[in-house]
């Protein structure tokens, strides 16, 4: 079993490597010295500066609002798209699926640049709306890919049964299909949410002067030099990510059992 310990040691090493920069940031968030070169003493001052920085707080709120709204809309459109795509057959389905995946595989700069051309040519002011539309646009295919497999696996006789029992199409959708798809829909929403929170490249292209997100703000501040306020922010972001992951894990576990019970019927 020597091989296994070697493997575990390697895994541990890579994990340390992966987390080192993150903990490095968080560690220096508590540094009293002004930069990340030397730890001179413990302080919470950087957090105080962060919370007093109303501009940055506003940007954080904006970013979350944008992520929430865009992923919500993307989830609605994407779920309908997934249901529609599954029903198609043959070449039409392949073509649409191919188009669906274009925004997932394209490099961010290409998406950003092409959206910038689009918004400019139709004469739209760059700002919240253009960023929102872009985020919805690149989130839709993610939702489709999360929801589609579930609908594909679904036993379609459930739908026939509902129809036979006199359910209207709307009732079948509400009572049978949507509950069955819930795990995929939640997963899609979460994925879209995190994509939106993390996105930098696309937002950077399509945002104007009056709207910015955390990523874009960090980028411009990082170019100006190190400020420990950003470290404090990263500490909070990391904590939040962990909560999000835990929450996601529990929601998926619970909804998974719901899905399973419906397959049993």
């Amino acid at each position: 079993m020597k091989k296994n310990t070697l493997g575990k040691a390697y895994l541990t090493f890579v994990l340390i490597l992966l987390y080192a920069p993150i903990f490095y940031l968080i560690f220096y968030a508590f540094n009293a010295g002004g930069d990340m070169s030397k730890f001179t003493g413990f302080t919470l001052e950087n957090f105080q500066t962060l919370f007093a920085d109303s501009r940055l707080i506003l940007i954080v709120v904006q970013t979350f609002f944008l992520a929430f709204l865009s992923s919500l809309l993307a989830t609605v459109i994407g779920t309908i798209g997934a249901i529609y795509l599954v029903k198609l057959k043959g070449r039409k389905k392949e073509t649409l699926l191919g188009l669906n995946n274009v925004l997932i595989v394209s490099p961010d700069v290409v998406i950003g640049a092409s959206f910038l051309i689009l918004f400019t040519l139709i004469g739209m002011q760059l700002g919240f709306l253009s960023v929102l539309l872009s985020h919805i646009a690149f989130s839709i295919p993610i939702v489709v890919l999360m929801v589609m497999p579930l609908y594909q696996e679904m036993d379609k006789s459930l739908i026939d049964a509902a129809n036979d029992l006199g359910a209207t199409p709307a009732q079948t959708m509400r009572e049978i299909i949507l509950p069955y798809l819930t795990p995929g829909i939640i997963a899609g929403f979460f994925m879209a949410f995190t994509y939106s929170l993390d996105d930098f490249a696309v937002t950077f292209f399509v945002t104007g002067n009056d709207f910015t997100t955390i990523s874009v703000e960090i980028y411009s501040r990082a170019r100006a030099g190190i400020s420990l306020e950003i470290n404090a922010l990263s500490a909070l972001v990391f904590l939040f990510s962990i909560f999000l992951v835990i929450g996601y894990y529990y929601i998926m576990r619970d909804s998974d059992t719901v899905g399973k019970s419906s397959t049993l019927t």
Partner: protein
Amino acid sequence: MTKRIYSVPYFLWIVFFVLVPLGMLLWESFFDLNGHFTFDNYIAYFSSGTYLLMTWNSVLYALIITVATLVISYPVAFVLTKLKMKQFWLMLIILPTWVNLLLKAYAFIGIFGKYGSVNNFLQFLGLGRTQILFTDASFILVASYISIPFMVLPIFNALNDLDDNLVSASMDLGASRFQTFTQVIWPLSLNGVRAGVQAVFIPSLSLFMLTRLIGGNKVITLGTAVEEHFLTTQNWGMGSTIAVVLVVAMLVVMRLTKERRD
């Protein structure tokens, strides 16, 4: 028939956010700064040493990043499949991707900086401070660091689906561990590797924020050039031309790494 109406938003999305933008990008690539229709952008691109060298460098960087990431990630994925709580450990590998990319880049500015930890350590060893930030090496390192989870995940999925009986059978038939790996495990995990290469190579061509923050404008990738032309020099035609090249490069990579079913 009423169901058709519900799919309208999805169709509108495909038309207005997939087809139209890509079409416009292609269209724009045929215009010069004065708005005249021309092939000059393509001629300039393919005849200029600067652009070709940049493209070559960009592909080379992406290749190095992909290979480095693969070498680091494959053993990780392999070890993961052997563990008891593999989903938990996989989660730990994926978790760093939830931390904003810019924050991680920012961390490396601190780590690699002139007075950062690595240099402090080098100083401590008596080797003295060197310029680490704003070099090719730091760009490749950080880009690989960021890509690891995206490589581990698909390889893990492929290895996890692999039937253990095949490995046992190979061992029973007298194959050495090495032979089992090269003849059985590796070929069967290739689809995961292909997916991983896709997920790392294409984004590596367009990581413009890293080239700026970590590469210090010395590393110019295709992505950096697109950003530069669109947002700094406002030469959309040339920017679009490079973006079209980027799309073609993407299609080539997709083609080469297409999942194979035997």
